[in-house]
């Protein structure tokens, strides 16, 4: 039964998301949206060297996307580029602790996509 996607863990993160908010003077900002449902996310990152020093997000979305953003930002804080680059769909699902239908997967993966893009865009700025 998929009702179990609304686990205590998910609901807890949804109701009290970690890292929700803005960073003043971030090194990079990245926004993305899920056009099919209107979910939006904006990721703010501050780096120290190759490490993610601070990360926050704003936006709105369903419980899954909000909980996912909360958990992923928590997970990558203090980690380096390589770590973020290697994060996969399965890592997100492991964090969330649930199984998802393809449609719902998009909700869960939007934050990961945004975090990766934020990191990549900083990386490409660096190399210029």
């Amino acid at each position, binding site marked *: *039964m*998929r009702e179990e*996607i609304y686990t205590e863990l998910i*609901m807890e993160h949804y109701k009290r998301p970690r890292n929700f908010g803005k960073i003043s003077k971030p090194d990079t900002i990245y926004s993305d949206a899920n056009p099919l*449902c*209107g*979910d939006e996310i904006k990721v703010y990152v501050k780096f120290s060297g190759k490490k993610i020093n601070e990360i926050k997000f704003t936006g709105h979305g*369903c*419980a*899954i996307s909000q909980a996912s953003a909360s958990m992923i930002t928590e997970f990558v804080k203090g980690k380096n580029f390589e770590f973020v680059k290697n994060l996969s769909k399965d890592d997100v699902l492991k964090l969330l602790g649930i199984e998802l239908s393809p449609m719902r997967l998009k909700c869960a993966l939007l934050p990961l996509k945004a975090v990766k893009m934020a990191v990549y865009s900083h990386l490409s700025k660096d190399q210029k």
Partner: protein
Amino acid sequence: MSMQKYIKDFPILKRKVNGKKLVYLDSAATSQKPFQVIKVITDFYTNHNANIHRALHTLSEEATIAYEQAREKVAAFINAESTEEIIFVRNTTEALNFASFGLRDIVKKDDKILTTTMEHHSNLIPWQQLAKMKKAKLDFVDFDKNGYLDMKMLDRKINDAKIVAVTQASNVLGTINPIKKIAEKTKQSGSIIVVDGAQSVPHMPVDVQELQIDMLAFSGHKMLGPTGIGVLYARKELLEKMQPVLFGSDMIKRVSLTYAEWNDLPYKFEYGTSHIAGAIGLGAAIDYLTQIGMNKVRQHDIELTRYALNKVGKIATIYGPKKAEDRSGLIAFNLTNIHPHDIAAVLNQDGIAIRSGHHCAMPLHEKLKISASARASFYLYNTKSEIDLLVKSLEKINKIFS
């Protein structure tokens, strides 16, 4: 309720979803199909399949006759003056594109195209693009806090409009717009009225002559018909002035390497092999609806909507008019502090299918200051007890998320 006897015609409604009996409340996205329609499609492929208009053999003749009969059924359904005015297209979106780009020679720099802020993207983007292409102006009529079109604003803005593009029924607010009134105004100002009938033609009697509509777009899949087929109606006189947008085989009379002469109406606008089975299936859907009677279909929508406004209205914020008579058969709503996706996901656990999101009406949602909504939409096969099930489930969701 008097529609009860039709439910058995829809095989999918016997399905279970997550162990529960399916409650399908997403007909505004696409309707379910009665076996009478499915059977006609199967029969076509099994017994009569051939290309049309092109060959003298018996199968081709049978297919051509069936296809052109479907066109007659569509013409009769909306009371068009002639079958020449019925263009088969893919869907409402394509019809509205053919309407807008078909008028490209008529729209000049600085001309005004007037539409509304309650349109589906399909009745917005083609006009945005046409305006961009021709350096024309795009202007909007707003809706008021009850979801009604602001007719005073319309009066102010309509006089110098060249084209007025408006939906007959909003797919979010449910609002049914006073098309006849607006059409009369366009007749005075000499503008062309293009009506998005995606949510109206399937649900109420629509008579293009009585309403004085110049162009009307609608989709087969929302009115018990198959996917991939839709209709652009336009007055013959307009179609003659309009340019085809896409080009190819059947729409041509004579071709040389450097020159092409368009075919007669309606073929001028139909390119390549048509969706023959789709048109025939749409014809069967129209037969089915006609046999029930569109007034009865409309009446049923009103009853369900009134019931839903009342019951769901007690626990949710519903957008649009308060009076069921002014609405089509749907309600878009929100529960406090619960994202519509989560509503839809939990409802699905109970076998209830609704839609959540912006329903391809982002500007409308922005105006309502929400990013998304949940929407339950009804058709002739829905019942009040299904709305009771919806309400029960919504109450449960409120509990889970409290």
